[in-house]
């Protein structure tokens, strides 16, 4: 029989191993000894062996052969063996092991043991690893101990009951009666356990919650006692009497007072007292104040109290301790929606926290700053955010860029500022922006027609400086391609003039094309831009031809295809080149492949004919709604389809419109008229194309309410001889605050040239309520006359 090595000796030997391999060897030997020991049976050495095994287990080595030994040791009569046996059970046995059920009986016996320390071992183990079955078996025992035992056992039994309820919620009713009476205990340990138990009971059952609301006065009393009591050395922590208990009581009061006026009133005075009297120079006091603030904000407290709470958070913001600043910002984040103005007052301090060294604090400050951006402070906030972006840690960058873009979209004071901001972000952190940024920016630029010159100059300069940021390069190439003539003209009021020659521009684009840093998509942009320039410059068209023909044998398939097509444009279709490559029209946001057409032709006025249902021929999604519109419109199917293709890709739009643009067309002025406005939802109609027999319009829905509008559908009916075709809408959710729109294109074929009328039914959900409304459009917008609308 090998001589047993004492635990501490073994630990010393293991620690002295110089390599991992040596350690493994020692441990293997030790485990063999331990196994031999276990096989031998009772000889007084078992607890040492199990202790050694537990150490080995903590180092990460397998120890499952010790499980049965734990069971045996727990059943032993010696306290030292029980103690280590229970510890082993907590470390090696969990509810997933079958052996755990074997100790249920031992625990049951030990719960009625004469020594309270044995009882305590059993209670602790049950609360730590008790499975649902074990809990069910032993719950009556625990309940008995809750009522009739000394405070040492009561406090443990209470927390054991909490564990049981978490595992088996149905047993909660068993403990409810005893829980209330525990509140009258004097012992802080028991009191603390009782508060935790009541909190857990209230979480599981709203009926119980109502019951325990009656305990609010009692809790307030206990709390008052703690706050005003004289110094008690036993529970004092840095001048606060039992902060653990105080915090738990505050948390329970929060649950009880939430959404309940009577309970909230009962605790108002107490909360004011705690908020004003607690000394927050040390962590214990701050912890209590923190919990108080959370409670005040979550119950129906009076406004004076709320102001007090926000001021406490403001004070925390100025604290030197980082931890306190961090939790202050976390709490402010929770209330920034409801108490926006109060939090705005501390905006300066919050923005300063952006410069803190610590990443956790930075992250909180960023979230809060983004929530505080408003139309009033957008300029100064954006300055701070951009400074932050240039120095922020990499894990926060993409969040920052998307936050900045959102804020800019909502509150930008001018188009030029908006474009400048986005350009700044792209130059600083172009690699961390979302994919939609490029098309969004391009769309934004096209709408700001007065800034084309300025924009293209700025982008050109940025491109010349640095071509590594792909999104920036893509936008720059597109702009140079579109507005290259403005660039070459050289004059621009808003930027100092710089003479740019055609060669410079083509050099820049070629650099992008040839650089290994450019992604395939970027090169596509550059190639198309080069091609577009062939109609905007005068001297170097041959250079462009040669660039283009070079790429017709490029390995990249996309580039090759483009080059071949452009080549063909040069050779066989040179007469069409100018038309194909002319200036892009202004793009509307969220419209799939939407085009502007010519406006020749006028709709003739004839006698109004009776409205009749018309079929809408469309692909329908299986889950679409089929509504019964008014009698006039039954049979109209307007299924919903999410818009499939990306909405603002300029190059695909131009190739798809090749045929449409033939024949020399001038861009038409875009006419949008509002046809319906109610409850924050407004519907506009925009005339896209009008010929003698065909009209194409776009219906645009936007939302100025506080909540998103969902399930937004449009159905339409037209006069008898007119054929109606509704294209897929861009979506069926309109974001709140005018952040987005839903558009749907409608094509009306009017071969008999009757007077065009359309009746539209709008249905949507807002804040859970379903709305439906109808509007009739009597004539359509055309360049010469505005539409007339009669609401039904």
């Amino acid at each position, binding site marked *: 029989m090998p001589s047993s090595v004492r635990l501490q000796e073994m630990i010393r030997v293991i620690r002295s191993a110089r390599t991992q391999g040596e350690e493994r060897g020692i441990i293997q030997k030790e485990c063999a000894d331990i196994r031999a020991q276990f096989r031998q049976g009772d000889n007084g050495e078992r607890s040492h062996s199990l202790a050694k095994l537990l150490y080995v287990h903590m180092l990460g080595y397998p120890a499952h052969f010790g499980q049965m030994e734990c069971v045996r040791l727990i059943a032993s009569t010696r306290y030292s063996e029980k103690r280590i046996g229970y510890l082993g059970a907590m470390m090696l046995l969990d509810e997933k092991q079958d052996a755990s059920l074997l100790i249920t009986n031992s625990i049951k016996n030990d719960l009625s043991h004469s020594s309270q320390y044995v009882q305590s071992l059993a209670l602790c183990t049950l609360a730590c690893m008790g499975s649902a079955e074990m809990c069910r078996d032993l719950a009556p025992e625990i309940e008995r101990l809750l009522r009739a035992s000394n405070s040492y056992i009561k406090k443990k039994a209470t927390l054991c009951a909490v564990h049981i309820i978490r595992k088996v919620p149905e047993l909660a009713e068993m403990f409810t009666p005893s829980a209330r009476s525990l509140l009258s205990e004097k012992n802080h340990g028991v009191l603390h356990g009782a508060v935790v138990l009541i909190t857990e009971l209230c979480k599981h059952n709203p009926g119980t919650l109502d019951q325990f609301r009656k305990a609010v006065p009692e809790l307030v009393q206990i709390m008052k006692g703690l706050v005003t009591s004289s110094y008690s050395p036993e529970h004092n922590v840095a001048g606060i009497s039992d902060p653990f208990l105080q915090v738990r009581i505050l948390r329970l009061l929060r649950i009880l007072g939430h959404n309940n006026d009577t309970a909230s009133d009962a605790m108002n005075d107490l909360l004011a007292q705690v908020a004003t009297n607690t000394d927050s120079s040390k962590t214990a006091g701050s912890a209590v104040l923190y919990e108080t603030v959370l409670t005040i904000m979550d119950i129906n407290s009076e406004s004076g109290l709320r102001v007090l709470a926000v001021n406490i958070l403001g004070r925390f913001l100025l604290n030197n301790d980082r*931890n306190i600043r961090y939790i202050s910002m976390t709490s402010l984040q929770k209330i920034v929606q409801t108490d926006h103005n109060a939090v705005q007052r501390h905006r300066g301090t919050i923005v300063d926290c952006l410069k803190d*060294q610590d990443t956790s604090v930075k992250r909180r400050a960023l979230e809060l700053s983004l929530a505080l951006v408003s139309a009033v402070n957008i300029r100064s906030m954006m300055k701070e955010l951009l400074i932050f972006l240039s120095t922020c840690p990499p894990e926060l960058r993409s969040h920052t860029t998307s936050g900045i873009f959102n804020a800019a979209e909502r509150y930008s004071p001018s188009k030029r500022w908006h474009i400048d901001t986005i350009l700044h972000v792209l130059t600083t952190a172009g690699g961390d922006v979302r994919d939609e940024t490029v098309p969004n920016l391009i769309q934004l630029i096209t709408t700001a027609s007065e800034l084309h010159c300025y924009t293209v100059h700025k982008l050109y300069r940025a491109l010349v400086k640095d071509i590594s940021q792909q999104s920036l390069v893509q936008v720059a190439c597109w702009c140079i391609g579109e507005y290259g003539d403005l660039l070459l003209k050289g004059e621009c009021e808003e930027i100092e003039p710089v003479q740019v020659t055609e060669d410079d521009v083509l050099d820049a684009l070629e650099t992008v094309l040839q650089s290994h840093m450019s992604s395939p998509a970027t090169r596509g942009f550059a190639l198309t831009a080069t091609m577009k320039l062939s109609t905007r410059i005068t001297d170097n068209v041959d250079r462009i031809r040669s660039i283009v023909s070079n790429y017709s044998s490029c390995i990249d398939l996309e580039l090759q295809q483009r080059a071949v097509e452009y080549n063909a444009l040069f050779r066989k279709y040179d007469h069409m080149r100018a038309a194909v490559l002319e200036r892009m029209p202004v793009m509307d946001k969220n419209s799939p492949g939407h085009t502007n057409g010519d406006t020749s032709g006028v709709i003739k006025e004839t006698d109004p004919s009776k409205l009749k249902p018309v079929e809408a021929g469309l692909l329908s999604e299986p889950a679409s709604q089929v509504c019964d519109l008014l009698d006039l419109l039954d049979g109209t199917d307007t299924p919903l389809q999410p818009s499939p293709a990306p909405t603002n890709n300029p190059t695909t739009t131009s190739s798809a419109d090749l045929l449409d643009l033939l024949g020399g067309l001038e861009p038409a002025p875009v006419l949008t008229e509002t046809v319906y406005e109610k409850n924050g939802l407004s519907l506009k109609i925009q005339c896209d194309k009008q010929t003698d027999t065909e009209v194409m319009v776009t219906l645009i829905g936007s939302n100025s309410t506080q909540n998103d509008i969902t399930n937004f559908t449009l159905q339409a009916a037209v006069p008898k001889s007119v054929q109606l075709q509704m294209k897929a809408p861009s979506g069926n959710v309109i974001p709140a605050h005018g952040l987005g729109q839903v558009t749907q294109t409608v094509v009306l074929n009017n071969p008999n040239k009757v007077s065009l009328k359309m009746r539209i039914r709008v249905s949507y959900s807002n804040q859970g309520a379903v709305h439906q409304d109808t509007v009739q459009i009597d004539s359509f917008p055309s360049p010469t006359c505005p539409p007339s609308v009669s609401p039904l």
Partner: protein
Amino acid sequence: MMRFLLLFSRQGKLRLQKWFTALSDRDKKKIIRDVTQMVLVRPPKSCNFLQWRDLKIVYRRYASLYFCCGLEQGDNELLTLELLHRYVELLDQYFGNVCELDIIFNFEKAYFILDEFIIGGEVQETSKASVAKSMEEADSLQETMEEYVNKPTY
């Protein structure tokens, strides 16, 4: 409720692990690895709170040991700092000027003290003196007193 409590050294060696929810061994090892890595890279004067998955991680360094625990969203982080401090005080009172070696060579006692202070992830006794007294009385029940109390010569 506290989900777990971990003690580990500056080199990442685990000295104590207490789990208050049922997890598989593999999950436990993964959590230990992730949390240890996250905490060890933090610079000295940082904030003691982290957000990790759906838990709040609160940690504090005492000499060469990191005390680290995972909390649920409703728990008070500042109070948990006090809790960790209380545990260290209890260890200090028991061992007399506790150092990491005490916890290495007497790990089972560290667990016993923890079990007198926290049960099921919640504090059971808020009085320092009470916990110390309970430990003393429980120790007196140990049958083999000498080697239990014996401090090793390192």
